[in-house]
């Protein structure tokens, strides 16, 4: 880089010294040296005059007029305002909002975690409903669905089951069907099904796992 007047090291030194001499913060010797140089160097003298004008222009009051008393009243009001309203600057509102949202999400996460842990500890309850796509409750192989007549007496039903050594393991369902199994858990034979079908008071008897 070339220095202001290309006249050598003295001009570069003068260029460096000018702001601080103008500020009156330069050492006495430095100020005296600069004055001496300026008396001999037209270029630096012109530059120094321009620097003086720059300093004068920079020292003019702000040309944007702002009432200090109004600003002070606003600042004091801000200090007196409740803590939540006195967060500094408009921009801080954004970070406050962010912190509040993060806190809300954390609280929700903790709540969900607690609920999950509670359900886990209690075991998952069976739902009170079943969709058609879900498997039906498990029925052992060899069971028989039996629909007794509506007029069949309970004593007759019990007698029939005892005579065939059957016991009820489910039902009645919505259509009045019971699920029965031979006592001891063995699969019911075709003969048992056949006997039920011919028994008095039985409307329907079908083995559970029979193909349609």
């Amino acid at each position: 880089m070339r220095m202001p007047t290309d006249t050598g090291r003295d001009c570069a030194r003068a260029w460096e010294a000018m702001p601080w001499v103008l500020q009156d913060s330069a050492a006495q010797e430095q100020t005296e040296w600069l004055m001496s140089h300026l008396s001999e160097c037209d270029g630096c003298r012109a530059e120094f005059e321009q620097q003086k004008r720059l300093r004068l222009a920079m020292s003019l009051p702000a040309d944007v007029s702002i009432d200090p008393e109004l600003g002070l009243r606003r600042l004091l009001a801000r200090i007196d305002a409740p803590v939540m309203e006195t967060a500094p600057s408009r921009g801080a509102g954004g970070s406050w909002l962010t912190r509040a949202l993060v806190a809300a999400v954390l609280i929700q996460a903790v709540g969900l975690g607690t609920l999950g842990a509670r359900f886990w500890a209690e075991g998952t309850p069976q739902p009170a409903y079943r969709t058609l796509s879900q498997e039906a409750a498990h029925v052992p192989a060899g069971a028989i669905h039996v629909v007794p007549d509506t007029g069949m007496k309970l004593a007759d039903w019990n007698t029939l089951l005892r005579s065939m050594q059957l016991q009820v393991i489910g039902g009645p369902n919505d259509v009045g069907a019971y699920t029965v199994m031979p006592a001891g858990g063995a699969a019911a034979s075709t003969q048992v099904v056949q006997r039920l079908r011919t028994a008095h008071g039985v409307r329907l008897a079908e083995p559970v796992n029979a193909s349609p």
Partner: protein
Amino acid sequence: MNDADTDADTTDRLLLQRMAAGDRTALSVLYRSYHGRLSRFLSRLTRRADIIEEVINDCLWITWQKAGSFHGDSRVSTWIMGIAYRCGLKALRQHGSEPVDEDSVPEDRMPSHDPDEDRELRDWLGKGLDRLTADQRVVVELVYGVGHSLDDVAVIMQCPVGTVKARLFHARVKLRNVLPGLAGVTSATKENAP
């Protein structure tokens, strides 16, 4: 630092001590004392009076809150100008280069009318400052307007002294090339600028 600066700094430190104890009168004195230089300093960053007022109040709000934690590592004015600089940059980031909405500016905040001489000087300066970057304008303001040393400016702008020197150098070269010269400055001389 000359005697006047030393006296001013002593006064500022006393005001800070009183502010740390909750003395609002001290805050009012400090506010009025700094309002002018902060306004001019911030006007080098933005022309919007509403933003300047907001930044001044943010700056002195922080000064009020942190008065008790001022350790005296620098002059009080250096500390406060540093706060103002950071608040100013933050405001610029938030508001960007939004144009001034003249309708939103109260009449009492409109630029005051200068005497002819001052207006001429402002126009002359304005032509130069328009060509500088924001950081260069800030350095020129702090050195020529406020009268800070290179070390002070480095503290205020939180950068190395070498960076301040470079900004000042380039700002001066630009101003020298842009500003209409005074008597004795020829265009040929300007061409020789660094």
